[in-house]
């Protein structure tokens, strides 16, 4: 009797916990706060600051750094506010890139929106050329060809880095940036 009762309580608690978790995760996914949008925009901007592109990646010394937004980027308005700001002697140029053609025209940073995750497996085959810092916001983005994955942990926004992908793309990541990364990955599984 008592054992039965205990089993019922355990079940109830378990169900409650699952319910809470489901609720919270559903809650976290959907409404992104303005602060988080701001932080994410800041992150993207910061990567432009702390990643070194080889000279070949640009036509000229003062050619702009292109930031291409692929798919639905929920913090895009904040990112646009960085448009035109100087990084060294280069201007940050934030543009929307909805088609593959636009991306191929040349992007130094490519932010892949959440909605485009389904195209990813084929996506890398299409855009595989050097000098692009790909940033995503989906779990496993860095494991599957991406370089930086911005993600939200319990209390803050962090990022993972796949250094091997970065090197493949001919990019040099600042050691301090690496020190800040939550996880530094390699494609060991391949």
């Amino acid at each position, binding site marked *: 009797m008592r054992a039965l009762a205990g089993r019922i309580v355990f079940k109830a608690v378990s169900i409650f916990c699952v319910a809470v978790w489901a609720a919270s995760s559903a809650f976290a996914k959907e409404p992104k706060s303005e602060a988080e949008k701001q*932080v994410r925009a*800041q*992150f993207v901007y*910061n990567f432009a*600051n*702390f990643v070194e592109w080889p000279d070949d990646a640009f036509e000229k010394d003062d050619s702009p750094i292109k930031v291409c937004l692929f798919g639905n980027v929920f913090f895009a308005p904040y990112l646009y506010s960085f448009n035109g700001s*100087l*990084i*060294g*002697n280069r201007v940050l140029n934030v543009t929307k890139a909805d088609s593959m053609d636009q991306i191929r025209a040349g992007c130094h940073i490519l932010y892949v929106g959440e909605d485009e995750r389904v195209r990813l497996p084929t996506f890398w085959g299409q855009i595989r050329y050097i000098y692009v810092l790909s940033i995503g916001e989906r779990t496993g983005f860095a494991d599957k060809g991406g370089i930086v994955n911005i993600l939200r942990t319990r209390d803050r926004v962090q990022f993972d880095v796949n250094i091997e992908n970065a090197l493949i793309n001919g990019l040099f990541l*600042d050691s*301090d*940036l690496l*020190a*800040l990364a939550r996880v530094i990955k390699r494609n060991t599984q391949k």
Partner: protein
Amino acid sequence: MLSLSRYRDLPIQRKLSIIVVIGILSAIVVTVANFISFDRDNVKRDLIEEMRVLARITAARSAVAVAFGDRANALENISALALRSTIQYACIYDQQHKLFAQYRRKNSVFSGCDSALLTGHNLVQHDNLLAVVEPIQRKGQRLGDVLVASDLSPIAERTRKWISTSFFVTLAALLVAYLTTRRLQRSVVQPIVDLSHVMDRVRSSNDLSLRARAKGHDEVGALVNSFNDMLRIVENHNRDLEMLYRELVEKSAEAEATAASLEVRNQHIKDVFGSAAHDLRQPLQAMAIFADSLFRKVTDPEQLSTLDKLKKAMENLSGLFNEILDASRYEFDSQAAASQTIGVKDLLSRMFLEFEALAEQKQLKLRFYTPDYKVRVNGALLERIIRNLLSNAIRYTDRGGVLLGCRRRGQYLQIEVWDTGRGIPAKKQADIFSKFVQVDDADRTERGGFGLGLAIVKQFVDNLGYDLSVESVVGRGTVFRLRVPLASDETHASANAAEALLHAPDAPVSTQVASKSGAIHQTRLDSLEPPNETRILLIDDTLEVRQALKMTLENWGFAVDDFVDIESMQAFYYNGGPAPALIISDFQLADNITGDQAIAAARRQLHSDVPAFIVSGAETEALWQSISATGFMALHKPVKPARLRAMINHFLR
């Protein structure tokens, strides 16, 4: 002030040591202070530089953390600064200057980071803290700032270290300086010390032949040489002085010998002079007497006139003779005379007789006022002084009279001689006591005398310690005031001694002034009745004098029994010779018999105190004192007839 005076008393070597020490100390202090200041600047600059480097490194490392807002990473970076012990706190500020991360050393006395970066400067220093601010930059973008603050303990510590090092270095330097300068100092000081020793030895031993040794050609060497030169000069002078002194001693001995021989000679001259004077007086006396008796016999007016001139010339001669003799004699031995107590009355009454006749001759009135005071004087000299004053007064007075008076002035008796003469001009009053000075040069011929009288008087007065003053109105007369000491008993019992005021000389000289004393007789030559058959006993061993005197006396109508000595006199009266009414005796008789002895012998023979007086040509003061000691009155040879007559009258009256 005290330490300065103490420094002055230190030995020179110690002074030099102090100078060296002070010099070294000040040099070291200045150098060390300079060095420390320089070093502090350097250390500070290094510290700032170090802080700046650390801040830059931290800034570079923290750029990502600030950019991504990773406080944990920033704190990790900044905490690495703890390795540098002087860093007290460090801060990271974000782009908006808000505090992003901070590190603060445990137990630090400093408060730590401000919540916002306030300063715009990249270097802040206050109190004991130094803070540098470095920007966090990335590709030309300022992401924030790093502030690193350090205390200044490295600077203080370094200064402390330097000071302690300097202290020991200073000690070492002083020691080395002391050891190295010791010998050098001695080379400076030793010559001075040696010089000082030589000086001391010269002073203590009075040995001027000592010399100091010069050890170099510096100032001290020059000083030593100068000292030696000086010593040499002093030595030479000393030698010269010694020679001079010896010469002086020799000369002095010679002079003493000369003085002794001169003294002998002087005495000899005096003896000769004395006896010559005595001998000279005799013929003068005789001449006077002969002239007088001739005057009585001659009737021819022409001859009489000649004779009168002769008489005047002789009197003049006699006066001059006395004057010259007095002057010369009293220069010799006036000081030798001793004081004795004398009655003024006796002394003056004797003189009165002499001068009354003189005054009479010039138609002058002579008055004496002499209370019976005892004075402590040299009788003979006082008599000489008064005699001179009186004879002067009579000599220079042509009308009126002469008054002599005495009055007491405390312990002194003031003897005053007033005359109604022509007076002495004020400007001449100081000169009249000089030898050979007369108020009017014509006086020498008119009135006789060499002007020696007052000079002699002044000499006596000065020698005897009396006081003589003169007061005179030209045309009215003169008064001489002589002040002599009273005898001591007289100074006590004098209250009842009458003191009469003296009348001015030009006032009528009244008789009551002079006639008060019974001892004073006013005698006038022309009032004498010619004595009839009055016998006079005359004793004189000199034939001429005796004969001259006898002739004079006989001319005056006296009967004279004259003798050459006592024996013949005694024989005469023994054989019933008629008794005389008066005895006149010479003082110095043959065979050392004196006049008083002769008089005594005669009185014994006659059994009667026959009045007697002495006539003497004695030249020495001592002799005159012994004459006055006999108590008899005496006349000087050559005796002036008037005086002789007055004296005889005095006794026979």
